[in-house]
Each structure stands twice: as C-alpha cells, then as structure tokens.
C-alpha cells in the first residue's frame, strides 16, 4: 500500500539518520517565526518517529520500521539526514542500524520505495556531502546522486509514490526555513516538480545566489577585496568566496536571527552544491590563473568580467578602498551638505 493522504489526516513523517553529523536536525531545532513544533502543526505533519525527538526507542522503533518497510505502516514523508553508507567493499557494514544488524542503506531503500515523498535533508543525504570527502573511504553517496552523478541509492529514475523525485534540501547544514518551507508546501499539496531546480533542490531558496543581499555587494562592485580573514571587503578575489556562484538565499533569509557566513566574515563554500566537499583548492584561498579568479560569477562572460573589473577597480571610492582590508571601517558614508551648512 502506498501512502495517500485523505484530506485532514495529518501527514506521517519518518526521519532516519545515517552517515552524517546530525547538524541538519540541530539547525532545524533553531527554526524561528514559527518554531519547529508550530511549523509541523501548520504543515499538518505528525512525527511517526524522529531519532532525536521521539519517545519510542529500541524494539518499539524496530516494529515501526519493519511495518513501514513492508508497507503496513503508511509513511507520507520519509526524511533522510546523512549520507547513505555503502562501505566497506559495498557491504554497508560501516553502518548497521542499531538493534537490527542490517545495513542502514537497506532500511532506507525499503522504506523510500513505500513513501509518499522522499526528502534528502542536507548535502550528505542529497549528494554524499562531507562524508564522501577525501578518498570516500566509507563509499558514501546520496539518495539519488553520487556527487554530481545521477543514481545514488535509489537510482536516477526514482519517483516516490506521489510522483516526485527525491527532494534535495541541500546545504551543510540546511537553514531551518528551507526545510519548513518545503514541508509546508508538501502539507498543502502544492509542491510540484516545477518547484525544484536542476538538482531537485527547492527553488524556494535556490532561485537565489548567495551573492544576492550580501552586505559586501558594494565592495564586490568596485573589486575592493578583503586580504585576511575578518576583513570587510569582498572575499571573492582572495579568500575563496563562492557567493556569486552558490545557490541559496543565505543573505536574504538570515541565519540564527541575523547572520550568514559572509556576515560572519568568512567565505561561502557553496555547501548546497554537489561535490562542494572537494573543491580542488584550499577552501579559504581563491584559485587564480594570471591573477584572475578561476570561478567567476555565474553567467558572466570572462572577457566582460575582466574588463568591468579593471574599470571598477579604477573607479573604487576611497571609502571602499580604505575599508576593504580592515576588520572595522575607517571611513564612513558622509553627507557633504552637512559640511557646507
């Protein structure tokens, strides 16, 4: 039996964790306006089980999972946090689900094939993420991707009972709002393939670049660059910032009441993208060829970027030039009418 929702009945959400850090759950607990429990109520979602939140433990959970895998317990929404672990040598023994002696991977696959919606929470569950970094000793992959390669645990053609692909709420960690927005749309029955981008990430947050709303935009415009960690200037030229390529609304939708990586004075590492965990360079250093950053802004022709950059560098106001390589501003905006008054 597949999960179908008659009107009014709460959608039953099952949350599983495998090769990850649990940070997406911890981030989600920080949901604000509304808080997580209110958001669940608003989305008409009830928790069948969540490893951090639910009372049930041990045998009580094994009974639930066996019923879910057999199709006897409807699961409207399956969330996976953390990568799928296939190692060593394809056995899945690097994560045997506690109390069952069975690879977690097999539990995830069995329940995903019964679920109404399947949601990958975080970049690990979507693409493999940090767990797949280095030599990927544990053979980690995502639910429907292995890095940028379609497939993963469930296969490229996987569609859940509701006809959708795996919904990839990528991020390391997720912003709580990325999850609650998606859940509210699922609850309202309005989430369609058209709400997802080319990596099946919700457009609710990936229609933006991290660059949008960055408080350093003026420094970017005039190529006034930060030189050391903590400097105020644009971090693209020297400090590895990928905000002009990365897809997320981090500087429009504040983190923890008012922050973002860039507001914290450190680089965007493009954590919503597949493969971000292996950038091929030191994270906090911009790779360059002939002094020009390799990773230019999305959609920007290189020749135009070089031409505009040299022009804007020549036109940089003193205020930005003087402030860019400092942790606090030395020159502030000033209204000249005050001087002549």
């Amino acid at each position: 039996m597949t999960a179908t929702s008659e009107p009014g009945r709460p959608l039953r959400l099952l949350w599983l964790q495998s090769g990850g850090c649990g940070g997406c759950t911890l981030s989600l607990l920080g949901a604000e306006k509304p808080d997580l429990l209110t958001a669940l109520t608003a989305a008409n979602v009830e928790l069948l089980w969540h490893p951090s939140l639910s009372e049930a433990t041990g045998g009580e959970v094994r009974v639930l999972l066996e019923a879910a895998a057999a199709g006897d317990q409807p699961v409207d929404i399956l969330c996976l946090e953390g990568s799928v672990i296939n190692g060593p040598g394809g056995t899945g023994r690097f994560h045997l689900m506690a109390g069952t002696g069975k690879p977690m991977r097999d539990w995830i696959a069995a329940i995903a094939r019964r679920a109404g919606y399947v949601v990958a929470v975080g970049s690990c569950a979507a693409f493999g993420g940090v767990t797949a970094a280095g030599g990927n000793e544990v053979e980690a992959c995502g639910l429907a991707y292995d890095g940028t390669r379609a497939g993963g645990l469930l296969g490229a053609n996987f569609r859940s009972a509701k006809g959708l692909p795996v919904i990839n709420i990528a991020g390391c960690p997720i912003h709580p709002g990325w999850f609650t927005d998606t859940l509210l749309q699922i609850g309202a029955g309005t989430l369609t393939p058209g709400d997802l981008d080319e990596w099946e990430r919700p457009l609710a947050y990936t229609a933006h670049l991290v660059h949008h709303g960055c408080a350093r935009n003026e420094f970017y415009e005039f190529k006034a660059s930060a030189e050391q960690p903590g400097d105020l200037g644009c971090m693209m030229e020297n400090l590895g910032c990928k905000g002009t390529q990365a897809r997320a609304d981090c500087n429009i939708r504040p983190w923890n009441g008012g922050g973002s990586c860039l507001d914290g004075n450190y680089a965007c590492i493009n954590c919503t993208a597949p493969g971000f965990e292996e950038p091929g360079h030191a994270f906090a250093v911009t790779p360059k060829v002939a002094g020009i950053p390799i990773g230019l802004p999305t959609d920007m022709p290189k020749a135009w970027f070089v031409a505009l950059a040299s022009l804007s560098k020549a036109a940089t106001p003193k205020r930005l030039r003087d402030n860019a390589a400092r942790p606090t501003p030395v020159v502030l905006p000033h209204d000249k009418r005050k001087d002549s008054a």
Partner: protein
Amino acid sequence: MSRLIVGPFNRVEGDLEVRLDISAGMVADARVVSPLYRGFEAMLVGKPALDALVYAPRICGICSVSQSVAAARALAATGAVPLAANGGLAVNLIHAVENVADHLTHFYLFFMPDFARAVYAGEAWHADAAARFAAVKGDAARDFLPARAELMNLLGILAGKWPHTLAVQPGGSTRAVSRAELARLGAVLAGFRRFLERTLFADTLEAVAALSTRDALLAWAEARAVRGDFAHYVTLSQAVGLNRLGRTDLRHMSYGAYPSAEGPLFPRGVFRHRVAGVLPVDRITEDVSHAWYRAAPDGAPRSPRDPGAPPDAAREDAYSWCKAPRLEGEVAEVGALSRQLVAGHPLPRDLVARDGATVEARVVARLLEVALVTMAMERWLRAIDPAAPFIDHTPLPAAGEGAGLTEAARGSLGHWVSLQGGRIANYQIIAPTTWNFSPRDAAGVPGPLEQALRGAPVREGETEPVAVQHIVRSFDPCMVCTVH
C-alpha cells in the same frame, strides 16, 4: 541469564546499540555498540592545514563549535600562533552558547521525556511529569525551543551561523563586533537569563550557583513556591532514586575550558576519591582490542600523536566502531560532572562523596553548569574591547605538531595534528563519548557506561528497561563524534 539488545537507542546524538545480559532482575553485563563509522581522520590527511576548520566541525552537528575550537587550538599550537584577546573572548562566547544550548537540549529533549513513559503511569507524579516533559507534546519543549532559538541569535552575530561556522580561527575570531552589537548581544543574553530564571530554575542564577550540598539542593527544590523544571527534576530524581542509578567509581578528567588571561573558567585536571590532581595528557592512549580496527602488530595501544589504526570490519572479536581511550592505562569518565568535580564546585563534590557518580549527579552538574557559564558569558561580553583586534594573522608553519584540548558539553575533546609542507600529515580525534562509551580494553576492563549499567534494575517483561534509558542518557552521548 537472558540477553537483551536495545537499539536503535534514540534521543542520543547518532546511532547506538546496547547489549545487555540480564540475570536476577538486573543487568549483569553490558556491551555498548557504536554501529557507524565515518572516517574523518583519514579524510583529513593530505588536506591544506586550514581546511581542517571546514571539515572538523562537520564531525558533529551538536558539538560543532567544540570541534572547531579543538581544531583551531591544535593548528595554533603547531606554530604558537597567538590568540587575540578579543578573539579569545568571542570564541569563549560562541563555544559557551553551544555548550549551554546542548545541556538544555539534552535536559528538555533527550533526558526528561523518559519520565513520561507508560512504565511510570502508576506513579503519583506521572501525570505532571508527562504534561510537562512528554516527547514532542509536552509543554516544556514548546517553552524551550523558542528560548534556544533566541539564544542562538548570539551566534548569528558572533559566528555567522550555527552549526558549522568558520568564524573560529587559530588567531581568534573573524567577526569583530561593534559597541552597538555588544549592546544587542547583551540584550539577547538578558532574555536568555530571564528564561533560565523563570522557567528552568525559578530562581536567580546566583542562587543556583550557591547551592553547595545535596541537602541544600533538596531543601531548595522543596521550598520553591513556583517549581521550575530543575526543581521538578530534583523531585523526580528522588522519587525514582536516580542517586542510586548508573553509579561509577572512576577517575574523572577535564581538559579545562574557556581560557582567558586569568586562566580557564574551568581548570584542567583529574579527580577521584575526593582528591584533585594533574592530568598527564601525554599518557593518553587508544586501545582497539575490541573495536573494528586493525591493531598494531604488538597489540599495544596507540598515542593520538601517531597515525590511527585502519578500520577492519571483519574482526570477529570486536563489537564497536568506538575505540577505547585510556589515561595511564585506566578508564576515565568525562562530562559536566567530571568538569565540575575537577573545578571543585562543592555541590557535585558532595553528591559524589555521598552516592558516587550517578545519573542524578550527572544531570545536576549539567544544570549547575548552565548557571555558571551563563554568568561567565555576561562577564566575557563586558570584557570585549571593540577597538582592539579580534584575530591575530600570524601564519601557520609549514610543518609542526600540535594538540587542541577543549571541553564539549559532554566532556573532553582532543585533536592531535601534524603538518608537513603546509598539509595535514596526521589527524587524530578523541571525542568525549569515545571515553564514556568505550568498549573493553585489552585487559577486559569495560568502559564507563558499561560499568555504570551493571546492576541496573530490569522490571519483569521490560524490553527497553527504563533504568537503562536513564543511565545511558545521563552521559549525554554524542555518537557521531565518537565514530568520527
């Protein structure tokens, strides 16, 4: 003798299985299984040195800043990078927010919901406890989550975001804060103090910090006209007898936490049988005799300064991905209780002198620490000089060795790094729960939880014994750190 396997053991961070031998209505023996391996130490080898600051916090979503602090201190120690004074204060604040939030997440979301279990339905106190603390549905979670989210607003300003910030650096913090922002941070902290003093303690932080004996604690809880959640816990602890549950008699260890020019807020050291002592850090080793790793040819335990043992899932004589850290060859317990015993606070010392290290004492120490650390946060905030630097830019050396020792909410966390050619040549991590949930060592000595579980009562017909649940969760385990 019968055998029980409890798993998935939830309301801990990560996946956990506990195997119990039951005899005559109690646990005769226990084996603690960490069923997940992730391989962070191998992942880090060959990476540029500062990339550790990206990967290390992602070992753990609940101890993320602790991992950052350990990594930053280890890197700084490779070349004696100075810590800017403001940066030290800012990092203490960032770290304290995480640790305090973790203590309360443990209390409200992980530990207390067990009092709502049906097994207690016949107790006079059950209805009240269930209304307040039931998982997801209880009032306490609805009060706590917004307060936690507001506390985290400190990190929006100081660290950009939580978890997984890059603000914590070897030389301090990337995020300078202005006078206006300091004022705003103070307001957020004032709001958090109000939550603690109205909801958790129903008393001032100072009054809680001044409790010095178990008798004083019980009298205080009894005398509350408005009962806060801490007093509620104290009455439940008495009713259930948590001071007789999960007892260990081990050496307690703390690396010390929250450094400053005047010394750390909580000192480094060891404590056992009423005596505090010096912690011989160089005598820490990891044993893999019962873990799924390839042992050294001579079977000797390894120093964390040396490369770690590679995984070996085929070993039949092993039962966990958790290694067995030992201090001078002995088992040690870590956590808030250990930290406060080493620091010499009279309340935990009295609790342990009377009953040993128990479930009751571990939880009391955590909440006591919430009061102590919140007051310290107010002092650190006042000490920041917005005109002075927050970060020192001294570069790391191309080669060197360093250790970063700090305290996560759940206990002692150490990173050991060696650099060659600007890259990581070796990286070893020993996490708090690796100490507490360690398997047996080569001498067959069980880890702290395995010892604490012996003698736990098992009621007729129980498959997930409630006493075992209280004991396991009293350590506030973090399995994802354990199995980095």
